[in-house]
């Protein structure tokens, strides 16, 4: 009965959607075809594309939008990630050590040695993607996810335990660094998350003001947070 009602409802929605968008054009492609994208009026995309290199010095316009033009939204997103990791740690705290009755067999020698050899290389690659976020595609979130997958590799291959205390400390300090950089911008210029470091030449590593510093803080925070989430879910954490 529930299946029949829901399938009927979904088919009705599909019919309505197909009949309503039969000849409408939406999105940026539609705006390009039916009248042109206005230069600086309401179209923020065009404005950010034209002005990002001069105002912030970052070659990656998406990095400039995420950190500099819409930096407050990134702060909110970092807060959501922190609250989710907090909730997960609180929920899984009591149910941590019940399921260790069966002892798992250790991994074979080749897997063990290979994972131990690969782990610093994965961290190096993650750090490279983190630090070059304003020059090439990449940035804090992608590099943090790569660092977290390095932790998953250590847990699966070497059967190691993840140091939960140190990961939590790294996560908190990185989040604090992000907020402190925002407050320094407030003290120097008068607005939160102001770009107060010098702009430099584009496509260099030390350019684009405060954007690579914020990206390093975000990347460390996301990496240690996702590693902590994996450790809590797997149940193998050491204090």
């Amino acid at each position, binding site marked *: 009965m529930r*299946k029949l009602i829901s399938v009927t409802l979904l088919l009705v929605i599909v019919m309505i959607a197909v009949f309503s968008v039969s000849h409408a054009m939406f999105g940026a492609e539609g705006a390009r075809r039916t009248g042109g994208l206005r230069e600086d009026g309401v179209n923020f995309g065009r404005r950010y594309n034209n002005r990002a290199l001069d105002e912030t010095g970052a070659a990656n316009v998406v990095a400039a939008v995420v950190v500099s033009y819409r930096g407050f939204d990134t702060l909110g997103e970092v807060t959501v990630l922190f609250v989710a990791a907090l909730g997960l740690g609180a929920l899984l705290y009591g149910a941590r050590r019940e399921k260790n009755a069966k002892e798992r067999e250790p991994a074979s020698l080749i897997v063990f040695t290979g994972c131990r050899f690969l782990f610093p290389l994965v961290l190096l690659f993650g750090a490279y993607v983190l630090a070059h976020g304003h020059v090439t*595609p*990449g940035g804090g979130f992608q590099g943090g996810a790569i660092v977290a*997958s390095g932790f*998953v590799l250590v847990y699966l291959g070497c059967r190691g335990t993840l140091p939960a205390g140190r990961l939590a400390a790294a996560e908190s300090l990185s989040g604090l660094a992000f907020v402190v950089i925002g407050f320094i911008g407030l003290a120097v210029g008068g607005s939160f998350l102001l770009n107060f470091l010098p702009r430099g030449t584009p496509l260099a590593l030390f350019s684009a003001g405060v954007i690579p510093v914020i990206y390093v803080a975000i990347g460390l925070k996301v990496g240690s947070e996702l590693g902590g989430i*994996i450790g809590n*879910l797997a149940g193998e954490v050491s204090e």
Partner: protein
Amino acid sequence: MIVFQLFLVLVMVVAAVAAAAFKDLMNAVIACALVSLMASIIFYLLHAPDVAMAEASIGAGLTTAIFIFAINRTVRQEENEEAD
């Protein structure tokens, strides 16, 4: 190029339907990872390389790992559909 994008979208939709239809939860999670992978390639073809990297590493890597750890601690098979 349009044939390639149509092929990717078809594989993505078929993998989503398979994720809904599998009874073994591990198979459904692997199908979900395939959906994320196809979405990541489509993101790259839509001129969004940052989003493609994020979706590939987070969607196809960490989400699968989180699901497998959760399935390890709970049930593995979906129960049969009774008349409801």
